[in-house]
């Protein structure tokens, strides 16, 4: 029962009076209406726009948010109204659903936003009314395609689990852009298809005479050369076909597919020719078989998307094409008959029979007009003109349908291509947004430490680096910081991670020289693992500029300058607190706190590493460009 007619329920119950006198048994008791409240108005405040409706209207659908007690969560005591912080435009549709029982989908609304709102209010999209259902389904399908595309691309970008050799080959065949080898193969086969088609054509061109004044086609004059070319092409095609057969995930399906049939038909004539060269009787049939070599040109459809679309269009327009053929046949027979009888009288007429007139009709209806058969009688001419006029019409009718089908499919493909082309940009955008927020944290951390360090040193010139962060940002950063503390790891960005990974792999040796450093031997991480998002402590020695890192509590910061002069005014930091004994190592060996300096200097023995945390605040000095010093700064 649609809720729109819920108001008529009392009428329906009253109409039951007609059944009472004829009933033979007693009627059941009516349900008692316990809370017979008077109907009251409810105010729904959606983002400031006030909607009002009767309570009973909302109660028509008790399994939605508004119809159940769930809406009490949104009741605002002060204003005695229900406040929803959602889109008021979509709410209009939702409320109309309660009023009329029909859910409509506004065309200007984005499909995901609409779905979100429906999910919030607990309404299933399946009950959208018929009037809007088609549109909704179309939009939903487009959206799903878009999401599927994105997912596919994401999957492709991650490193796939190692495919078997067979699967790799199949992938290479189907998508030539996946690897260079596939691309090379793709172009080579394309080239050979072209060569083969051209040789087939050139074979038949007359190529000069031999003594005896006979014109020979090139194929016979240079028979050996053409045979070699043919053999080469067929060999390539055979190899390709066999490779595809081997790599196909479902061989049976592959054999039945159109492309493989074309492949087979393209190479068969050659082999049959090889077998049959000796037998002179069937050489006539053999010559006919060579016609099939022209099917090689269809192999190009693997290389051209437009051809594939055309083929698909023709297949999907089969009914229109069938109708075209049928109506043409009808018209041809009618006009051929008429012309035959009209021209029967005239002497030496070419319209010798009705089938002979078919040729005239076809040539006239398609406006070719060869002129080899022309009517001579007046009646014949009249009917001939009617024939040509109707031909134009009959052909022009189904053609737009086919054209529009082709156009629609083509544009769909264009859209997919456009999506793919924009995908890179889109993913880059998403990536930038993601790293933006983590960079913000790192940046603020650096700035925060910088500020503190500046306070310690008292140098005022870097004040402009202080950035005012909003309350939400600072709370977020505090949260990330707590996480860092909890896991004893730190957030850094990708660049640094990779650099440190390289460094630590180079620094395997020296690191083992400083075993005494930490008290936490057990914690290692492998820097070369795919945990790009994990936080790890990494040595940072060769990073220029303001890489200041420290923990915002009692910790010692080991700062090491490198030889680079640009570091005079900056500090490069090396992490390492005595507490955090983590050192990533590509080999996974047990490296603990160590100060690693990059190039060389074994002179850089770690000094002062394992100071106990509550050391006195050291002073920071600007690192002299020469040599490397290790300066400890403890930030409180």
């Amino acid at each position: 029962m649609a809720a729109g007619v819920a108001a008529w329920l009392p009428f329906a119950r009253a109409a039951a009076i007609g059944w009472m006198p004829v009933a033979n048994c007693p009627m059941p008791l009516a349900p008692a209406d316990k809370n017979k409240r008077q109907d009251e108005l409810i105010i729904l405040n959606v983002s400031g726009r006030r909607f009002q409706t009767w309570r009973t209207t909302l109660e028509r659908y008790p399994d939605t948010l508004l119809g159940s007690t769930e809406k009490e969560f949104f009741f605002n005591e002060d204003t005695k109204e229900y406040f929803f912080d959602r889109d008021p435009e979509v709410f209009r549709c939702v409320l109309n659903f309660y009023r009329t029982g029909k859910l409509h989908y506004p065309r200007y609304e984005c499909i995901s936003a609409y779905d979100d709102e429906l999910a919030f209010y607990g309404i299933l999209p399946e009950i959208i009314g018929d009037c809007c259902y088609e549109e909704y389904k179309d939009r939903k399908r487009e959206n799903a395609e878009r999401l599927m595309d994105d997912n596919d691309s994401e999957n492709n970008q991650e490193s796939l689990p190692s495919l078997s050799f067979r699967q790799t080959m199949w992938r290479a065949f189907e998508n030539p852009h996946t690897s260079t080898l596939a691309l090379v193969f793709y172009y080579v086969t394309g080239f050979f298809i072209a060569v083969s088609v051209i040789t087939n054509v050139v074979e038949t061109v007359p190529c000069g005479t031999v003594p005896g004044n006979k014109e020979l086609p090139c194929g016979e004059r240079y028979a050996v050369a053409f045979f070699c070319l043919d053999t080469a092409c067929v060999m390539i095609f055979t190899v390709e076909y066999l490779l595809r057969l081997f790599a196909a995930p479902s061989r049976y399906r592959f054999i039945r597919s159109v492309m493989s049939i074309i492949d087979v038909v393209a190479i068969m004539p050659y082999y049959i020719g090889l077998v049959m060269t000796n037998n002179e009787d069937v050489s006539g049939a053999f010559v006919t078989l060579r016609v099939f070599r022209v099917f090689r040109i269809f192999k190009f459809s693997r290389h051209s998307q437009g051809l594939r679309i055309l083929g698909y269009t023709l297949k999907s327009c089969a009914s229109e094409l069938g109708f075209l053929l049928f109506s043409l046949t009808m018209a041809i027979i009618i006009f051929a008959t008429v012309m035959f009888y009209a021209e029967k009288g005239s002497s030496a007429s070419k319209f010798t029979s009705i089938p002979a007139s078919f040729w005239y009709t076809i040539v006239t209806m398609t406006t070719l007009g060869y002129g080899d058969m022309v009517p001579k009688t007046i009646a014949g001419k009249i009917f001939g003109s009617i024939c040509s006029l109707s031909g134009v019409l009959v052909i022009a009718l189904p053609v737009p349908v086919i054209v529009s089908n082709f156009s629609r499919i083509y544009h769909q493909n264009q859209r997919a291509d456009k999506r793919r082309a924009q995908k890179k940009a889109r993913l880059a955008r998403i990536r930038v947004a993601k790293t933006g927020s983590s960079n913000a944290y790192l940046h603020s951390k650096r700035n925060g430490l910088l500020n503190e360090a500046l306070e310690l040193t008292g140098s005022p010139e870097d004040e402009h680096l202080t950035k005012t962060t909003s309350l939400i940002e600072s709370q977020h950063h505090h949260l990330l910081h707590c996480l860092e503390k909890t896991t004893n790891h730190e957030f850094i960005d990708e660049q640094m991670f990779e650099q440190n990974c390289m460094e630590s792999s180079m620094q395997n040796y020296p690191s083992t020289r400083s075993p005494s450093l930490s008290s936490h031997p057990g914690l290692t991480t492998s820097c070369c693992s795919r945990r790009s998002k994990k936080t790890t402590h990494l040595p940072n020695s060769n990073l220029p500029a303001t890489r200041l890192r420290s923990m915002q509590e009692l910790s010692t910061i080991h700062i090491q300058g490198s030889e680079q002069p640009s570091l005079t005014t900056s500090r490069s930091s090396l992490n390492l607190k005595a507490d955090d004994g983590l050192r990533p190592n590509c080999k996974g060996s047990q490296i603990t706190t160590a100060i690693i300096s990059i190039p060389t200097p074994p002179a850089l023995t770690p000094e002062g590493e394992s100071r106990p945390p509550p050391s006195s605040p050291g002073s920071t000095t600007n690192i002299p460009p020469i040599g490397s010093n290790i300066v400890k700064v403890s930030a409180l």
Partner: protein
Amino acid sequence: RNPGLGNPPRPTKKALKQRFLKLLPCCGPQALPSVSENSVEDEFELSTVCHRPEGLDQLQEQTKFTRKELQVLYRGFKNECPSGIVNEENFKQIYSQFFPQGDSSTYATFLFNAFDTNHDGSVSFEDFVAGLSVILRGTIDDRLNWAFNLYDLNKDGFITKEEMLDIMKSIYDMMGKYTYPALREEAPREHVESFFQKMDRNKDGVVTIEEFIESCQKDENIMRSMQLFDNVI
């Protein structure tokens, strides 16, 4: 491979042929001009008709509903019939929404005729409320009178067996096909027989209003069921 291309539209052969045939002069659209003109006028007429009921005070006097009840009733009425009147089709369609399993159209027709007291082919809000007032707020005798009026299809003061059979069939139609026990063909007829057994005092094959009321008043079940209507609104 073209995934997700969906189905291209397929204008049927018939549609294309119709398009083609329309070109031929004899089958052109001028064949039936008069009908199209009339239908256009008819549509125009219906859409401009809009009936407004009498004032709330008058309705309050005429019926036994309170003001608030009338308001609620009118709001529901106007929701389904924005033009202010219900015609038979509308009536049947609304009523059928309450009986999804069976076919309630015949019974709805009978109801329509019972509500449409002035027999003008449409039920206005006044008719609607007047009928409801009798059924829901009237005395038992009023209600019985109304029921008799419903059964008496040709309004001649007598209920014949044929009329009763029609009514009975329409009620059984509302049950639909899937019932337990399965509906038999003779069930309505048998029911009519038992009804006449009960109601027809003088066994003359028709039931008059007096016989009807008298018999109903003697029947406990019917009396009790009539009281069900007190609490509908």
